[in-house]
Structures are given as structure tokens and as C-alpha cells.
């Protein structure tokens, strides 16, 4: 913690200090409300284990109400600006907090773990990475693939290590319901969550286009590497750890088979995957 953070948070009464280990990367979260333990733990990506708070190299401060310090999520070692600010912790705010916490963790865990805007599933230990921005159709394709027996890893944020392995981050899928977006677990959709790391074997740079036909083109490693970098959850990782981040992107793009192309119905891609992997 910096001196300036001491000055800012010095008067705070911290009621809760939690330490975590996420796939070998450690961080701590402290909060001024001890009743939020379960809520905080539920927001940490799958696969975490308890660790010592005191020795965690990166710490986050979650402030619910504290006089001159506005409610929010603060990154202790990165100055005064809140990563996320809120006035009350209602369900909508908690959902927003989940996104912001993931973002903050992507800072805390770099360059040991990389967080990508991507969906991911695995057939056995063959991971399929589907990078893409919001509304590119990641969730629809993920849902189609888990409907065909793939293990669910995530529909929005992939966590991968420097060796190019992806880890389950089994947040509920954001599926479009009759009238609004619903959040469904893989289990409620008849699928199973991944439980361990999977090597990224296929990367699909695709997006939904109405009436589109899936005609994949091989993506060369450099091009794939750039597209992976473009989908970093925390682009600042490139500025802070350029060598490690580029090495990660190059490793994934060289070790996996990567393809680009627009798609129409998700079943086109799923059929192609099944043929390709001899499923």
C-alpha cells in the first residue's frame, strides 16, 4: 500500500480481510462490512483457494460506507481513483461489481494470469477459445457447443496462464430469455462445468452475421496473436508487462489452430468443430 493510500484509508475500520490464491496468483480483499464475506467469495473466479491476506502482493479495498471515502472498489497500489464506485450494494450493483472485480483481478494477476474477453469450452482436454467483444455471439456459440457435450468454461471472460492453459471461470451464462437477459448455470442447461485446466487447442475469431455462412480461414500466428492482444480484459498488461504478454499471445497463437470468419447460425460452427475433432 502506498503512503497516499494510507492517508486516504488510514481512518477506515476494516472488518474483513480475505486472502486468495487464484491458480498461483495471490491477492487480498479487505472490506468495511464483515457480513459481505460470502458475497465477496461468490464473486471470485472459480478455482480460488484461501491464502494469507497479509502477504498478498496485491490488495483491493471494498468500501461500503466510510465518511470521506466514497463507496467503491479501490486498487490499493494504483492511486486514488476507484476501479468501481457505488452508493449501495444492491443486486444490480453486485453484478457490476463482479465485472469490476474481474477487471481488478486481471490487473492483480498479470502477468501470471491473463484475462481475455472470450468464451471457452473444452472437449476432453482440448480447449476451444472464442475471443470477441460484447454482442459478437460468444454466448450463443458456447451454449451450442455445451449442448453437444463440451465442458463449460466461460461465456465472457477466459482466465489463462502463461503456459496457454485456460481455467474454468464458470460464471452463469447470460442467455437471452423471452423478455430480458437471464443468467443460467451450465448445469441448468444440461451441461457440465470444466473442473481443471485445458490446453487451448483451437481459437475461433468469429462473430455472428445474419445470414452468414461459416467459411473459416486459417489465421496465421502473428495475426492471431494480435487478435488475442486486442481482446485482453486489461489492455494495460501490454504496457506493464509487454514481453510476458506478447509471449503469451504468441504461445497461444502458435500452439493452437486458429481460424477467422463470420458465422450465421451457431450450429454451423458446432458441426464443423465436431467434424474437425472427430467427435
Amino acid at each position, binding site marked *: 500500500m502506498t503512503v497516499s493510500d494510507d492517508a486516504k484509508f488510514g481512518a477506515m475500520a476494516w472488518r474483513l480481510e480475505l486472502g486468495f490464491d487464484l491458480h498461483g496468483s495471490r491477492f487480498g480483499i479487505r472490506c468495511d462490512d464483515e457480513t459481505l464475506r460470502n458475497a465477496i467469495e461468490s464473486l471470485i473466479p472459480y478455482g480460488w483457494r484461501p491464502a494469507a491476506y497479509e502477504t498478498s502482493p496485491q490488495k483491493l479495498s471494498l468500501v461500503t460506507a466510510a465518511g470521506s471515502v466514497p463507496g467503491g472498489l479501490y486498487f490499493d497500489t494504483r492511486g486514488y*481513483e476507484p476501479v468501481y464506485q457505488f452508493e449501495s450494494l444492491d443486486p444490480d450493483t453486485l453484478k457490476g461489481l463482479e465485472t469490476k472485480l474481474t477487471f481488478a483481478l486481471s490487473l492483480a494477476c498479470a502477468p501470471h494470469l491473463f484475462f481475455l474477453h472470450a468464451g471457452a469450452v473444452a472437449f476432453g482436454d482440448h480447449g476451444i477459445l472464442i475471443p470477441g467483444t*460484447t454482442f459478437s455471439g460468444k454466448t450463443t456459440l458456447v451454449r451450442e457447443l455445451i449442448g453437444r457435450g463440451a465442458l463449460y468454461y466461460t461465456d465472457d471472460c477466459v482466465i489463462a496462464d502463461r503456459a496457454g492453459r485456460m481455467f474454468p471461470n464458470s460464471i452463469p451464462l447470460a442467455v437471452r430469455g423471452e423478455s430480458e437477459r437471464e443468467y443460467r448455470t451450465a448445469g441448468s442447461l444440461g451441461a457440465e462445468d470444466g473442473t481443471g485446466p485445458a490446453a487451448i487447442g483451437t481459437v475461433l475469431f468469429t462473430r455472428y452475421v445474419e445470414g452468414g455462412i461459416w467459411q473459416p480461414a486459417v489465421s496465421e500466428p502473428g495475426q492471431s*496473436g494480435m487478435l488475442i492482444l486486442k481482446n485482453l480484459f*486489461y489492455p494495460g498488461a501490454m504496457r506493464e508487462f509487454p514481453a510476458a504478454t506478447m509471449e503469451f499471445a*504468441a504461445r497461444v497463437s502458435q500452439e493452437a489452430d486458429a481460424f477467422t470468419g463470420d458465422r450465421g447460425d451457431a450450429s454451423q460452427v458446432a458441426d464443423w468443430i465436431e467434424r474437425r475433432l472427430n467427435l
Partner: protein
Amino acid sequence: MNNSQIPKARKNGLVIQEAGDEVLVYDLERNQAHCLNRTAAFVWRACDGTKSVPAIAEMLGKEFSGKADEDLVWLAIDQLSNERLLEAEIKLESNGLSRRAVIRRIGLAAAVALPVVAMLSFPSTSLAVTCSASFCGSDSPLNGCGAGDYCCQSSPGSGNYVCRNLPCSVPC
């Protein structure tokens, strides 16, 4: 071609990563990543400050088992220079032809893939309080704000743009 037009690849302030036949280059000063395809990467590596463009074209032809026109090398050098991947700026020498005309001319006869240097910018900080007007109204991951944040005008007509964790209330 005079001596000042002998290209020399920049090495300082760059992080270089091989990716198959291509090369990823990160410019620490400009916070930009570049992808050089095989042709561009070959030309860039050959730019050691001693070789002329015809010499590099000859090397390129041997590497790719085909004749490589000098125009092809100039096209690579032009892109590398524009992306500041050379020590000094180099002007395209193509007998008055535009870059597009050069590409068209090469494209008809080339046995070697056209050189391509792709670029991707990274925001100065992803926890920025301020952001660029060009991203106003956007929650793009590249808007310079945190993930999912919107870049908004701070007040109507202010010309200041700030990051918000909600969609913009002030029209862009």
C-alpha cells in the same frame, strides 16, 4: 537512392516476439503493437543500415524462391517507416506512383506475399479518469477506461471526456 535512404531497423524501445514466420513488435514509447507478416518481417530484419533496397530485394527473392521487385521492398519500408520501426524516416521511392498504384502493380506480378504491418494501439491507462473524444459513448475495451466503462462527455459542450461505469447521460 542516396545514403540517407539506406534503411536501418529501429531496435531501441521495442519488445520483439517471434510468432511463427511473423513478428510481433511492441513500441514502448508509443504503446502500440505491430504485427509484421513474413515479407515485412524479412525486410525489417534485413534493414541493418548497410544494405540498399536492391540488395534487400535480391535477398527477399532468394528467401522466397522467386523474383522480388524492389517496389515490394519499398512498400515494406514505407509501412515500417510510417509505423516508426526504422531509425530514420524513409520516403517511398516509386517513380511518382502512389502507394495504391504500387500495390496494384506489385499485386499483378508478385510471387511473394505483399508486406503487411498491422498496428494495434493500447490506451495509456486502463484506469484512466479521462478518455478520448473519439470513444465518446463507447464502452469499447480500447476506450482507455476500465473494462465495461463508458467514455462520456463530462458536461454538454465541455470538451472534457471522462470514464463512467454507466452509459453516458450527456449526449456525445
